[in-house]
């Protein structure tokens, strides 16, 4: 099953050919859609199950010189000299480009299938998009799942392409009111592996003072650097998807996995809505201050 047109399962085509609309929107968002002139057509979804391995570059972790040089790499040398075979002589942060590429493949396959379902319904866009990824029953398999509600703009000509947005309801209405239209969702993941240096390991274990490292509470340079780099990489991926449009409602989430002592993966995920101005700035009505009684 490749992310090309017509790779939808038979059951999907059968469901989409039925008449009644389905909508994953809450009733408030559904009402707001009708108010905006968007007619819900159906709940659309896309999936992709990916085999997943975190080991993508032979020799990484054995020596600081192994592996591909593409992407971010930063080495850390031990300042103490040879102490014992258990003492780490070097540490390294490196970007796991194969993880980033695989994540992009999985997300894009599920996304294109969802848009294909929306296109089958003759939709102009997909609102209230929800994405998730998680392990499937087999070890080492990750499932990407995207769903949203396909909508048609009332009295509008047939669409050239299907737009998408995480927004729905009043948040989408405010975007339109401010003169912007949704283009697509954008999302990316950056992955940095941390093989701790001796100092990082001791600081993380709370035993830094034994090795003449600052005993006070202090920042752990290697981890901070990995965090900063992974966020910067995620931002650069999203910037490349914007093609000059604006980003709205961005959210950055972080995930840290520990594979073994001193062996971490730091992931940053940035998602948001690519939007484009379609009319001049028109100041919104002055908001009314309110206090809720509940």
């Amino acid at each position, binding site marked *: *099953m*490749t992310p090309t047109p017509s790779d*939808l*399962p*038979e*059951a*999907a085509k*059968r*469901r989409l050919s*039925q*008449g*009644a*609309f*389905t*909508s*994953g*929107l*809450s*009733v*408030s968002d*559904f*009402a*707001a859609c*009708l*108010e905006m002139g968007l007619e*819900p057509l159906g*709940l659309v*979804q896309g*999936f*992709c*199950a*990916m*085999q997943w*391995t975190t*080991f*993508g570059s032979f020799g990484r972790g054995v020596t600081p010189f192994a592996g591909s040089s593409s992407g971010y790499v930063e080495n850390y040398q031990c300042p103490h000299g040879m102490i014992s075979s258990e003492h780490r002589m070097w540490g390294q942060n490196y970007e796991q480009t*194969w*993880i980033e*590429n*695989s994540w992009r*493949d999985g997300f894009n*396959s599920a996304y294109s299938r969802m848009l294909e379902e929306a296109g089958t319904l003759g939709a102009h866009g997909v609102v209230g998009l929800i994405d998730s990824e998680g392990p*499937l*029953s*087999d070890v080492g*398999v990750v*499932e990407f799942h995207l769903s949203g509600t396909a909508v048609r703009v009332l009295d509008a000509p047939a669409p050239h392409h299907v737009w998408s947005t995480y927004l729905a309801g*009043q948040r989408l*209405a*405010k975007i339109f009111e401010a003169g912007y239209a949704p283009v697509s969702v954008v999302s990316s993941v950056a992955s940095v592996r941390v093989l701790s240096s001796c100092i990082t390991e001791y600081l993380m274990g709370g035993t830094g003072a034994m090795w003449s490292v600052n005993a006070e509470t202090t920042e752990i340079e290697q981890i901070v650097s990995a965090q900063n780099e992974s966020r910067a990489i995620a931002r650069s991926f999203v910037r490349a998807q914007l093609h000059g449009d604006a980003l709205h409602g961005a959210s950055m989430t972080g995930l840290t996995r520990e594979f073994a002592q001193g062996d971490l993966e730091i992931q940053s995920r940035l998602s948001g809505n690519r939007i484009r101005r379609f009319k001049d700035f028109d100041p*919104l*009505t*002055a*908001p*009314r*201050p*309110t*206090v*809720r009684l*509940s």
Partner: protein
Amino acid sequence: MSNPTNDLPQATEHRLEELEKGLFTSDLSVNEFLLIKEVGFHPVGFVMGSSIYHTGIQTRKWSQSQELTKLTEAMYNARELAMNRMEEEAAELGADGVVGVRLDVNYYEWGKDAAEFIAVGTAVKAEDGVSRLNQLGKPFTSDLSGQDFWTLRQTGYMPQGLVMGTCVYHIAHRGIGQTLGTTGQNVELPNFTQALYEARELAMTRMQDEAARLGASGIVGVRLEEKSHQWGSHTIEFLALGTAVTKTSEEMTLAKPTTIISLDN
């Protein structure tokens, strides 16, 4: 206790008799209660239905993705029984519908392969005396909150029934050849994708079929849930749930939204 009507326990009938005298019970919040009254309905009682069901087992092939039709049927029937009993209680009270329906599944230590399916909600009756029973002549059901019910009514739609579709699916294990062939690669597994896609679409199609039987024009608030229950990680139940609605009025009385700044959190 099987499906036919009037199979309610004696304690239930006694409780419902008290409710028929005018006292009402409900799990609605104060705000929900006021909004339900605002759209011309009055709560008449808290209703429930329950079914303890032996779901049994079904053999599955190690290397084949397939729907486990017996388990699908069991999960479907058990929920239907619970829902029917809840509707029966509502009908006993002369209600037009049930709002805020919750469907739960509980497992107990004393019952291997058995589960209790429970449906609860608040029965409501139209204050103008006009029947709002659905196309099947039963009280409408809906998992909408009081607020959502009010909002939906402002858009000219009326709930017809809580509709659901389920599919219990066994996802094939990978063979040694398949596993070795992709060792060390991050690639799509088309069989897995296809199996999951098929299972979810089947659940959603069945939900849409139920809505069609109610003569609904659409389904709002669709939720897709996944649970392995007690079958192991490769057997998953996909459940699609939503409220089937029909357009009863072209008039849309929803106030135009106003931009606000909240002065509390």
